[in-house]
């Protein structure tokens, strides 16, 4: 709670320093292959799904909540999109439906949390399974093949109008993250999100419609998850009911590495994105250098603890 401005600055910069460290390390180890335009383009594309999830999750975490159902929700989105495409819907309509499906899961989460007054961890532990089961049911317990469409181009590393430089999905992430960062910092919804996460009963007392705001937050986060599902579909080009299993932990890890506190009231979009980038560059660098999987796993775990430890060292939580 003792936040001098200097300490807050370090907190803000912490994740960026972590990213810089990873970049410098792998550049030193693989000077020829790591710091190349094509590799960076690849990693950026690989960051999109976790990044979009992390942007939404930042709202949830700042409000003092958590959402374990995002992995399942991404799978559901891919199934919805694939089924609609298979049944002859236009790619745009299918994409929209996939995004909306994520939003619906979010709204359901928010509604259960506020109506039943159950901790978000528990509600989403339940919906994690409910949504995954629903995805399997909708998929008839198998992958759904969808006819080829321009949706696959959303995550193409060499984008179609080549002046885009990076995949349209990367642009979507950058633009949405920029906009939502502004929303979180400056909009009334954003201030209310921080207020709820910081002290919920005070927020109630101040006349904030806490329940409605929470449903909005989970709904917004759900839309981002749905978008992540669209990008996942674009990468896989099939609807996959087992996609993104356990991805919620990566997304939460990105948000946490980015400086958010799981007890609410603290966090930011930029940090979360950097958190997602740290993990993506780490995986990429490990593959380039030829580090075996178990070592990579150990490394990622150690980095989560280390980054947060450095970040928190001057604070309290």
């Amino acid at each position, binding site marked *: *709670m*003792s*936040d*001098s401005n200097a*300490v807050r600055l370090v907190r803000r910069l912490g994740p960026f320093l972590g990213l810089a460290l990873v970049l410098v390390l792998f550049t030193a180890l693989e000077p020829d292959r790591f710091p190349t335009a094509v590799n960076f383009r690849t990693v950026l594309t690989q960051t999109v799904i976790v990044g979009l999830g992390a942007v939404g999750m930042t709202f949830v975490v700042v409000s003092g909540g958590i959402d374990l159902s995002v992995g399942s929700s991404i799978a559901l989105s891919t199934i919805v999109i694939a089924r609609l495409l298979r049944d002859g819907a236009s790619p745009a309509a299918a994409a929209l439906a996939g995004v909306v499906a994520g939003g619906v899961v979010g709204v359901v989460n928010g509604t259960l949390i506020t109506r039943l007054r159950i901790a978000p961890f528990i509600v989403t532990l339940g919906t994690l399974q409910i949504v995954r089961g629903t995805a399997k049911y909708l998929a008839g317990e198998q992958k759904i093949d969808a006819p080829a469409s321009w949706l696959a181009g959303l995550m193409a590393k060499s984008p179609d109008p080549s002046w885009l430089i990076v995949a349209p999905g990367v642009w979507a992430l950058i633009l949405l993250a920029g906009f939502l960062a*502004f929303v979180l910092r*400056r*909009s*009334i*919804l*954003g*201030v209310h999100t*921080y*207020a709820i996460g*910081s*002290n919920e*009963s*005070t*927020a*109630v*007392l*101040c*006349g*904030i*419609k806490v329940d409605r705001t929470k449903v909005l937050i989970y709904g917004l986060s759900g839309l981002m998850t749905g978008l992540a599902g669209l990008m996942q579909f674009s990468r896989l080009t099939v609807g996959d009911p087992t996609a993104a299993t356990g991805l919620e932990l990566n997304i939460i890890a990105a948000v946490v590495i980015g400086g958010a506190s799981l007890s609410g*009231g*603290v966090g930011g979009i930029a940090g979360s994105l950097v958190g997602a980038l740290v993990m993506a560059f780490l995986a990429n660098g490990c593959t380039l250098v030829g580090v075996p999987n178990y070592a990579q796993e150990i490394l990622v775990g150690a980095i989560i603890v280390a980054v947060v430890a450095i970040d928190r060292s001057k604070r309290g939580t």
Partner: protein
Amino acid sequence: MEGVEKSFGATRALSGVSLDVAPGDVHALIGENGAGKSTLMKILAGVLTPDAGRMSLFGSPYRPTGPLDARRRGVAMIHQELTLAPHLDVEANLTLGTETTTFGFVRRAGRRAAIRDVLTRLRLADLPFDTPVGTLSTAVRQLLEIARALLSGARVVIMDEPTSSLGRRDVERLFDIVRELAASGCGIIYISHFMDELREVATRFTVLRDGASVGTGTLDAVDDDALIRLMAGGAPTTGTRAPSVRGTPLLVLDGLEGHPRPTEASLVLHRGEILGITGLVGAGRTELLRAVFGLDPVVSGSVTLAGIGFSADEGPDARWDRGMGFVSEDRKHEGLMLDLPLSVNLTLSRLEPVSRAGFVDGKKLDAASREWIDRLGIRAAGSNVAVGSLSGGNQQKVAIARLLHHDVDVLLLDEPTRGIDVRSKAAVWDLLRSLANAGRGILVVGSHLPEMLAHCDRIAVMNRGRLGEARDASTVTAHELLTEAVSVAESRHE
């Protein structure tokens, strides 16, 4: 204690304080909000370690390694903020950290007699030991806090604003205990913002100002003005009561019933008046305000603001929208967002004036908060600091300032001057009076009768959930109010 210093980051809380307490002495520690009283005492009780300075206890050097060490060596502290574990029962709370065990298992029987004895001294004789503390009222919890200090058999007892949530009768009980302790040779350090309380119970005093001790002596030898001058480093401001101009009815409560309290409350609050509600702790005053503000459900009866009633499904947001604001007595849990900036705390209920098209404008936000920081004399490094870093009194001012920013017509204030130093107290009352004069209606819950009598226009007494008739403050006496408050309310802890 000699030359004690302590800094929190850039904040220098203590810059060389000296204090000595003799056995049998009740020593008053006085100072404005943020002067460093609590910090100094936390050092003595082993909660904080000093940056510099020496301490000695019964003639030998004293450097506690932690709160338990301090308690073992005979120093117990009753903290300003309640420090009980809500899920544990009464007995577990009282013995926490000092349990007697056999093979690691708690032997409960051993201490029961001692606990019963202490509880009896605090008039809590029939309180079952296995009640979870979270279900008890604030007042009972405060008494348990005191019981814990007594139980440890401390030779030095520190009381940091122990009466802030006690009713008059409990306060008197507490004073008896303080005197007993002193008579048995304990040294007691007593922190309070109530001068009359201090004079009643304490003999010597030390004044802190900005983290330094600026005076010490015998209370009988100085008058209040002199003390206040020492605390503030200047002349005291005294609020004088201007005659009230009572306007049209603003807030009308008709047969309001909540669950479980209030049982029956009717009143009319007019524009331009300050209406006080007093009574014993636990009478249900807080719950009355909460019901009026839509925080607790209303069972029957109505709340009418400027002629229009509130429906059952309207919550606090509807109250704010229609010009009613509330300051809770529980600032920490229900008043401020301690890790958010002062500016956000101040403007949260009404962000519209400081925003454009749904987005908050940083400049306007800063300007709006600076205005209130200046007008209320809030001591803060800026509008962007986290509210949690302010002293208790300054935090309280921020909570009140929120209502001023929102520009409400009706102010509901629960113990608004609790924990505020004398000067700020006067400032708050002055402020309330000027608001009343500008046509607002103010409903204040308070326990300190002299203060209420001095500043309210009318006063009503709440007795076990029933609100009595409001009476003119210039004619009613403290004695009459007290009689009404305690009548038929014989056994409060049933």
